């Protein structure tokens, strides 16, 4: 049976905790252990933080939405907003071996998303929305 739930939110970092609790709960329902729930929470948090930082604060009460689906293989999550089309794969992979002085400030969000999920992809929607879809498979056994 597919279990699905959607949150619609304003662009405000004050909602990140609520987002975390929602996503973590849905990951638990999908059969993930506590550490995997945190990994999924980070991936979604990073995506939502990007959306919030690029959306005018207070612009709308439903600036973006998060849909979580518990599926047979694990979990699928879609984050939808009205942002400009974005070439997700053009973002440089950060050098995680660089020293403190040589690292750019920031740039780790997309890297963590890709590390913690099995699949991450942006697709422009015909509805003018932008959709970031990510999924993670439950470990075998």
């Amino acid at each position: 049976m597919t279990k699905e739930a959607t949150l619609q939110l304003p662009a405000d970092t004050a909602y990140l905790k609520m987002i975390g609790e929602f996503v973590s709960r849905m990951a638990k329902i999908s059969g993930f252990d506590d550490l995997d729930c945190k990994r999924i929470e980070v991936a979604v948090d990073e995506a939502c933080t990007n959306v919030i930082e690029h959306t005018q604060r207070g612009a709308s009460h439903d600036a973006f939405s998060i849909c979580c689906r518990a599926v047979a293989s694990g979990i699928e999550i879609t984050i939808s907003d009205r942002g400009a089309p974005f070439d997700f794969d053009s973002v440089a992979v950060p050098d995680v071996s660089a020293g403190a002085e040589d690292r750019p400030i920031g740039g780790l969000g997309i890297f963590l998303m890709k590390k913690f999920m099995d699949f991450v992809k942006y697709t422009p929607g015909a509805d003018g929305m932008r959709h970031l879809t990510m999924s993670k498979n439950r470990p075998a056994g």
Partner: protein
Amino acid sequence: MSMEITNRFENDVLVLGLDGRFDAHAAPQVEETFTTLFSQGATKVVVDFSAVGYLSSAGLRVLLVMIRKLKSAQGAIVLAGLQPHVKEVFDISGFTDLFTIEGSVQEALAAI
């Protein structure tokens, strides 16, 4: 508030205690607290992570700002009490090699 921040001095070492989620909502609070104390002369800092159950890249960004400022002032930073999830984010991001990390605040105070 998504995070409670406490600060105290052990001799000349600032012990910054964080309690809560270290995300993009908490990050400006932590950076502001640190920047204020740094401008008042705190150059040796122990950050107690034992009550931080969650860390995103916004928190890593603040830690990078902190270590750069402290190094530029010939200071030092030691982190204490990283929970497994927080440690994993550190490991993946290469931050484990950037920071001295101890199990407890007492060990961190001895190491700094």
